[in-house]
């Protein structure tokens, strides 16, 4: 597989943020995914949303949060915003 092949493959997936840096010439030994932060941010955000989901479960049916739970929710939302920021930077810059 050539450098050109890999570049084309990267473009073919249609995700603007996925860019490959090719290391090596005649023999391709390593591919570094530049958008790894975006991938991590997607999972990070979904994991934080999961924690928020669990908070909803624990406080069902009325979802009245006590002060500790509000603090937890606040921290989770702040973390989520950070992950969204990473995604903006990685995908839209």
């Amino acid at each position, binding site marked *: 597989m050539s450098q050109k092949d890999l570049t084309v493959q990267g473009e073919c997936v249609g995700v603007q943020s996925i860019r490959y840096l090719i290391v090596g010439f005649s023999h391709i030994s390593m591919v570094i995914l530049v958008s790894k932060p975006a991938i991590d941010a997607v*999972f990070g955000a*979904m994991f934080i949303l*999961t924690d928020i989901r*669990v908070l*909803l479960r624990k406080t069902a049916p009325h979802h009245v949060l006590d002060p500790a739970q509000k603090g937890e929710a606040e921290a989770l939302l702040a973390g989520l915003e950070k992950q969204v920021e990473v995604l903006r930077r990685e995908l839209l810059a």
Partner: protein
Amino acid sequence: MKCAGNIEVRDVEESSINIDPIQAGGRLTPEAMKAIIAYGDGYSVCDNCRKPFRLDYIRTPPIDVFHRDLARFLNLDVARVVPGARRGFQAVAGTYVGKGDPVLVTALSHYTEILAIEGCGGIPREIPRSRDNLITPDATAEKIEEVIRETGKTPPLLFLDHVDYAYGNLHPVAEITKVAHGYDIPVLLNGAYTVGIMPVDGREIGADFVVGSGHKSMAAPAPSGVLAVRQERAGEVFRTTSARTDVTGRTFGIKEVEMMGCTLMGVTLLGMMASFPAVRERVNHWDRELSNAQRVVDALRRIEGTVIQSQYPRAHTLTRVDTTRSFDLVAEKHKKKGFFFSSSLKAKGIVGIIPGATKVWKFNTYGLTDAQAGYVAEAFLEIARENGLSVS
């Protein structure tokens, strides 16, 4: 909101308190939810499957370690993950039960045990229950004697439910196992309602095989479960293939016949694995769960005419209740008939009771927070008062 097409989002657990009798112990941990997000693709656990190409040898993710942890958790020697407890029953029955063999079950056995026996051509023979809905060692001995007398055969296996599905009663399984072993009958302990929510020590009980359900009691997706066995049984139940095909001469390595090769290969296994540390820890807090169950049961007992049909005080969070002489009397005159009860509960944000049921029904408080258990207890009392029932 839709997930896709015409599939609605399931938000029962987020919007309500769910006291469904079979769903409580299978609610996922946050860790399992996260693992499922990452491992949703079909053969997701197979990325790093190397020779000898078997599930319990995979190191990344650490499926090999998980298998050893499962065996240790149940204090037995060898464990395999299976697609539901019923597949564990099938594997053991397939190993020991032959056509026409009488196989012991109990009057409170789950139907899948009967089907597993039937599938092998065995004949299920029930140990009767006592008046208080328990299986006793004496009844076990009497049944074994009866079967041997009638058939001339010693049953090759006893299926024994640790806690039964009908009453949520905890049976004296160690004593019953001792009786069975007195006749050289191996015992399969069905821990679908116990493994993963309360401490289960297979060796202390004396069981030859312990089966647990991932989706019923180990906070895992369905279908998942565990089959753990003693070392001396492992070579039998987990025997490997010796087949060679006639045309191509193919052989199939160390695939296990009863497991049909690999068993759980995606979200079921990873969900089970991700929940396991929390599951292993939560069994140590069984007293708190019983306390919450007792709180709700005691509230129901305050409603005149209501009878708790399960053991009292409660030894499990699954409870069967008879409200023929309380809520069912209301149903007779209510404009919604029997649906008034589930409808009243739903209006208070509580779901899981079969709509229309006002005579005999079951519920399970497992996993509720203390506040939620208190809320459920008070909700039953409120519904009784609102409908003119006397509350002591």
